[in-house]
């Protein structure tokens, strides 16, 4: 017979077993608390995360998509796994469009991985998979797609194949686009309806006038928002670059001697300084002599003009006299206050410094008065012109949506701004800007026809024409500034002047965008003709 263990041994075993059971249940309980309470709601590890795009979407001010990363794959191959490298190269070339010769060379090389094709679309991926080749790998990525195509190519810009911004807002907003939460977007100030109309009309004008380039900008004078910005020639951001394309954005990247539109600023300075009254008479006819130079007119003028008509008829001699009343130092200070003597800062990385004389004397004051001898970007001029009409307060152009009033420091007196608005309306009703008038919309504006400087000489038949318009003139909300580089208007160049080229362009743009922008329409007199 075996001897049974003593009772104390049983009890000890039971206690050990009970302790182990309690410990086991305690472990389970602790784990339950950990999972259900402490880590409640947290995603279990190992669950595939939702792949997010590399860059955020770009939207226009109405939520219309401007740029988006679409899912695409980079295709890699491991050549040493192929039974027949020649055949694999042939098949992959046929399916992906990659160079067969390059693939053959690469497959016979020493590299373990070979990049076959970048950014292949899902249908190409399916065709590659159907080849049944071993050693095929896909690296998921994104390809930037621009649904509007050429619509705002230079403004939006492009990215390189690695998804880094190269130009335009893609570069200027690089950090913001990369640091957005998944699914979030960056909303720009652009209105693609207005952008399309401006581009459409500018393209028509460029083709009709056989011009080198054309462009324009629509700016909100209260918020500083750029509603539209166009530069032609442009390019298709989704397609390959061709010879006829241009990635230059003439509105922010190029500086121009803008000519007579600058007279608006000279008159604003004169009104601010009280150096002349609008009904004061000025001698015009034979030109204005200053030192050894004589400032002449682009076309015939009467012997005398009132200051009001100096602007309306765009007299160089008259404007030079008005500029000289303020003097070089004051003119320089005035233009500097308007931001015209330094590069404009905006979200666009492209910018250009203005060109102006270091030796700013009497003759420079006279010529700068009518827009020669100083070169600025169209964006800089538009921002300065906005100050003239918006009550005299500084604005900073922006390409991000910013609906609130963003007017800053008072640069001009509100009274000066009110006088200038009336004057600009007078130019359209009684002066060189008649062709910009649109029945029902109260437009003010000023023409500019500047001879281009080629190799140090001004060439009469090479013009840069422009028109600066503001509407509604009584209480401006928007300005439209359009330019045409070397238009060919015929009739000895007379029809190339801004009044016959840029002014109608501005008018046709305003006629189409004003209803979209909700600008109130004035009753049209029965005898008003259609602006067509």
């Amino acid at each position: 017979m075996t001897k049974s263990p003593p009772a104390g041994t049983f009890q000890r075993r039971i206690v050990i077993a009970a302790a182990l059971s309690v410990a086991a249940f305690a472990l389970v309980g602790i784990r339950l608390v950990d999972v259900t309470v402490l880590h409640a709601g947290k995603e279990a590890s190992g669950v595939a995360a939702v792949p997010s795009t590399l860059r955020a979407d770009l939207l226009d001010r109405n939520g219309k998509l401007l740029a988006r990363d679409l899912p695409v794959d980079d295709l890699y191959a491991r050549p040493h796994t192929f039974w027949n490298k020649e055949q694999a190269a042939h098949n992959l070339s046929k399916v992906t469009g990659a160079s067969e010769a390059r693939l053959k060379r690469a497959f016979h090389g020493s590299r373990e991985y070979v990049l076959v094709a970048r950014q292949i679309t899902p249908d190409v991926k399916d065709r590659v998979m159907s080849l049944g080749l071993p050693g095929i790998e896909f690296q998921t990525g994104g390809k930037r797609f621009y649904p509007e195509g050429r619509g705002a190519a230079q403004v939006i810009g492009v990215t390189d194949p690695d998804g880094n911004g190269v130009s335009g807002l893609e570069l200027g907003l690089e950090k913001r686009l990369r640091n957005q939460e998944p699914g979030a977007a960056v909303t720009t100030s652009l209105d693609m309806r207005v952008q399309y109309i401006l581009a459409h009309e500018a393209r028509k004008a460029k083709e009709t006038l056989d011009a080198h380039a054309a462009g324009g900008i629509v700016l909100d004078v209260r918020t500083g928002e750029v509603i539209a910005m166009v530069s032609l020639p442009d390019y298709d951001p989704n397609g390959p670059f061709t010879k006829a394309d241009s990635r230059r954005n003439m509105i922010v990247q190029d500086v121009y001697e803008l000519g007579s539109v600058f007279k608006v600023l000279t008159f604003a300075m004169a009104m601010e300084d009280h150096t002349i009254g609008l009904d004061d008479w000025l001698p015009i006819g034979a030109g204005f002599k200053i030192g050894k130079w004589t400032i002449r007119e682009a076309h015939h003028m009467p012997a005398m003009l009132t200051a009001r008509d100096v602007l309306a008829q765009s007299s160089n001699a008259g404007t030079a006299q008005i500029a000289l009343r303020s003097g070089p130092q004051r003119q320089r200070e005035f233009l500097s206050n308007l931001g015209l003597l330094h590069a404009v800062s905006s979200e666009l990385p492209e910018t250009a410094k203005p060109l102006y004389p270091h030796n700013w004397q009497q003759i420079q004051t006279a010529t700068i008065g009518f827009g020669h001898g100083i070169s600025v970007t169209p964006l800089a001029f538009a921002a300065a012109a906005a100050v003239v009409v918006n009550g005299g307060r500084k604005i900073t152009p922006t390409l991000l949506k910013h609906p609130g009033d963003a007017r800053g420091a008072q640069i001009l007196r509100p009274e000066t701004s009110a006088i200038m608005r009336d004057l600009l309306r007078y130019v359209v009703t009684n002066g060189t800007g008649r062709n910009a008038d649109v029945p029902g919309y109260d437009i003010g504006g000023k023409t500019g026809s500047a001879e281009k400087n080629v190799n140090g000489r001004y060439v009469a038949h090479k013009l840069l024409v422009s028109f600066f318009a503001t509407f509604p003139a009584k209480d401006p909300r928007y300005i439209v500034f359009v330019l045409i580089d070397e238009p060919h208007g015929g009739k000895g160049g007379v029809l190339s002047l801004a009044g016959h080229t840029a002014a109608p362009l501005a008018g046709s743009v305003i006629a189409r965008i004003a209803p979209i922008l909700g600008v109130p329409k004035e009753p049209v007199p029965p005898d008003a003709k259609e602006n067509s």
Partner: protein
Amino acid sequence: MIRILNFVCVIVAGLSCLALYHVSERTRVARVELSHVHRQIAHERGLTAVLEAEWGRVAEPGRIQQLAQTRLGLEDATSVQLASFDMLPRRGEAAPLSTSPIRNASVVAPAAPRASVPTHIAQPQQARTYRIAAVRIGM
């Protein structure tokens, strides 16, 4: 008594193990399903993104304008053809039709094809002529 208690404990421990295994397995399956759903959501989001981009392309204003001009014969309205609501006469106000800019215009709506209309629905009689007031200011 001790033996019974031990037996019960062992049974409970065994059942607990089974229950834990069952919960663990269900959790694993749920995680796999969750992972699958996440992938599906990501895939659907990708497709939606592609569709939205495609919609942006086909709804591009230039394309719409071209289609409107070639297919519908539409043209840009000039400013004198546009009016705001406050320019329209209020209900009951006299709106002389011949002397004011308000004129009558008519449009003919084509009759619907009979074959496509179910028999229990009343058939349209003829092409109907609707008279509408078109605002023509300054003409």
